[in-house]
């Protein structure tokens, strides 16, 4: 039963259709015929967060954009996963010390897969997707290792940051990130 449940989820990962910067171009390339993300069941980019399972954070997250990204993730139904694509989404990348760049989306979202690169090749995105599929296939549905949506105590919503006078304010997911 567990195997069937995981198999179904891992082979129909529907990403949310949005892009933040140049990594999104590689993501689009990965979904087209040459690299063909449809081979992994992840070609159905959904324009609505209500129909998406996977958020590919593809590009630089500006501080002005971060609340909207978190809000979109909150609107996605569980089970849901996050891929941080490219060095900007992981840590801020070359713009890390900039005044309007978030130092990694993992400050606010639970990232499952990090794909380094600037930007990562479509093959790298497919590799990350395969790793995410393996991660889903390994998930246990009961016990302490169970996924977030089957855990009553796990957070259902992630705090959306607010605009402060100097910086984004509000609780962060991982203060030591």
């Amino acid at each position, binding site marked *: 039963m567990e195997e069937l449940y995981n198999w179904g989820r891992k082979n129909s990962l529907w990403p949310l259709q949005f892009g933040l910067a140049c990594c999104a171009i590689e993501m689009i390339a990965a979904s087209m015929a040459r690299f063909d993300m449809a081979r992994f069941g992840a070609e159905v980019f959904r324009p609505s967060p209500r129909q998406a399972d996977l958020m590919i954070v593809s590009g630089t997250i500006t*501080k*002005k954009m971060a609340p909207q990204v978190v809000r979109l993730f909150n609107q996605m139904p569980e089970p849901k996963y996050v891929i941080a694509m490219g060095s900007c989404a992981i840590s801020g990348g070359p713009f890390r*010390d900039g*005044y309007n760049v978030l130092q990694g989306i993992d400050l606010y979202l639970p990232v499952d897969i990090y794909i380094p690169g600037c930007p990562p090749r479509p093959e790298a995105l497919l590799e990350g997707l395969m790793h995410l599929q393996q991660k889903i296939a390994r998930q246990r549905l009961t016990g302490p290792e169970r996924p977030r949506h089957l855990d009553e105590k796990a957070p259902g919503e992630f705090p959306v940051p607010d*605009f402060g*006078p*100097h*910086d984004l304010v509000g609780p962060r997911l991982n203060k030591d990130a």
Partner: protein
Amino acid sequence: MQTLEQIKDRILAAFPGAPLEIIPNGSPASQPSLLLAPGQAREIAKFLRDDQELRFDYASNATGVDWPEKTVREKVKTKRIVDGVENETEELVERKTPAFLEAVYHLYSMALGHGPLVIRLRTANRTDNVALPSLTPIWRSCEFQEREIFDLFGIVFQGHPDLRRILMWDNFIDHPMRKDYVPADAAEVQL
């Protein structure tokens, strides 16, 4: 295209006694620019746009520069008479440059095909007296760029039709492109 001196003389002919200054540029580009006084800047800008010989009808770029106060050391030669003998000595003199914010406009003429003419406007200081006349009524293309200068440098453009922040959020209070700006999270996360 006329040289900057000719343009300056032409402005002076229309505005007698206007305080104009040619700022030299020591870099390889050696593109000098014209410093206008904020008080008369909009009239002079209108003249630059409408004058038949100049017709600078297009402002391609407006940007800001932050000049904080700094100490400059210069060697100055002075003559002194010591024991009846005149000696020339070099002295190291320290002086402080004034602190101000600057708006720089690059003007072209589409009609006559010349340019660029670089004009500069300077605020009185960097803290409380940071207003300049907006040139958006003269050149519409300055609208967003003056908003960006307002956002990032904090120059208040008087007469701008819609002076709001354009890149940062509205209740942000700093000006990130100023030299003394430190990002809020700079010390927080260290690699």
